[in-house]
């Protein structure tokens, strides 16, 4: 019965549904939350969902991490390394943007005491 979980389709289905659920949570956060920190967290949740989705779908059953050890020196039967490298890059970028956004938020809060993005409306017609 557990073989059911050992098929590619099942794993990919679970990962897709799970990551999209996570994405929906992020989306809900963007739709409803107005606190700058929460909005940034929502973005991070959405990004994480995408990372999970992307990495997860590139895992096929029976593949191993793309690292050779001493004994077997061939790169076969391994997962695709390019998505992993791309996700690594995207994570760092996401972190950079998040940190920058937080620093903006801190400074703005210090100046005005506002952390609600819908109340940041000094710039308007």
């Amino acid at each position, binding site marked *: 019965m557990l073989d059911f979980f050992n098929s*590619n389709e099942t794993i*990919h289905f679970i990962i*897709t*549904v799970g990551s*999209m*659920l996570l*994405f*929906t949570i992020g*989306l*809900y956060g963007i*739709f*409803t939350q107005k606190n700058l920190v929460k909005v940034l967290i929502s973005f991070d949740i959405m990004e994480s969902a995408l990372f999970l989705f992307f990495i997860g*779908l*590139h895992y*096929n059953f029976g593949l191993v*991490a*793309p*690292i*050779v*050890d*001493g004994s077997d*020196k*061939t*790169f*076969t039967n*391994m*997962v*695709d*390394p*390019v*998505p*992993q*490298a*791309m996700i*690594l*890059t995207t994570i*760092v*970028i996401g*972190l*950079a*943007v998040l*940190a*920058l956004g*937080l*620093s*903006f938020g*801190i*400074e703005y809060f*210090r*100046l005005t005491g506002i952390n609600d993005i819908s109340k940041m409306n000094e710039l308007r017609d």
Partner: protein
Amino acid sequence: MNLKKEFRLKHIVLSLLSSALMLSILGLLSHVKTNLHKTVGDIVLSLNMQTATANAVTSVVTFFRGIDTVGEVTVLFLATTGIALMLSSTQRTYKKVVHQESFILDIGSKMLLNVIVLFGVYVIVHGHLSPGGGFQGGVVIATAFLLLFLANPNMKLKHSILTLGESLSGAAYVLIAIISLFKINILLGNFLPHPVSQIGELVSGGIIPIIYIIVGIKVGSEMSVIVEYFVKEDYLKEVPHA
């Protein structure tokens, strides 16, 4: 009350809509092919032996998609500069936090610092052999400094050294790219000898471990700076602008 109801209604409608959207996208994603053949990754795997790097992800990050990593390092550098722009200023003064000098905390954190930094260096240096690398190791090093800040809020980092590490490592990365252009006429090419027989050894892979070490220094110093700025925000004496 009415207003609140309206807001709730808006929330419900929006969340329903987002769920509908995601359900629909989910339905679409079932069309996504999951067992692709002949992706770039497959070609990379087949070519990876030539780079003499045991970790294929590392070779992709530093070599096959090397310019991505230059960009990534730049992004981190820009973010650090931006944070420094926001959170540092001559007007800011930090209050001396009175904290209990605890012998165990003091000595323990300093001891752990060495261990964590050592671990970080290990992760960086073995980036081409095992999971890990410059980014991961750099962040590990930054956590060591975070530990110091937690133990002693009055601590200060030497910014000149960090700036030196950050600037010079970044410049070194770019210089490697340019030297490679002169040596083998390809930007960011692997111009150091990297015999395939050495695969799995510590000195292997030509420029790949060197790049990861540079990235490690850069990420380590930048993350430490970021950590310091955010931690120090807690101990700000007065509001500089207001």
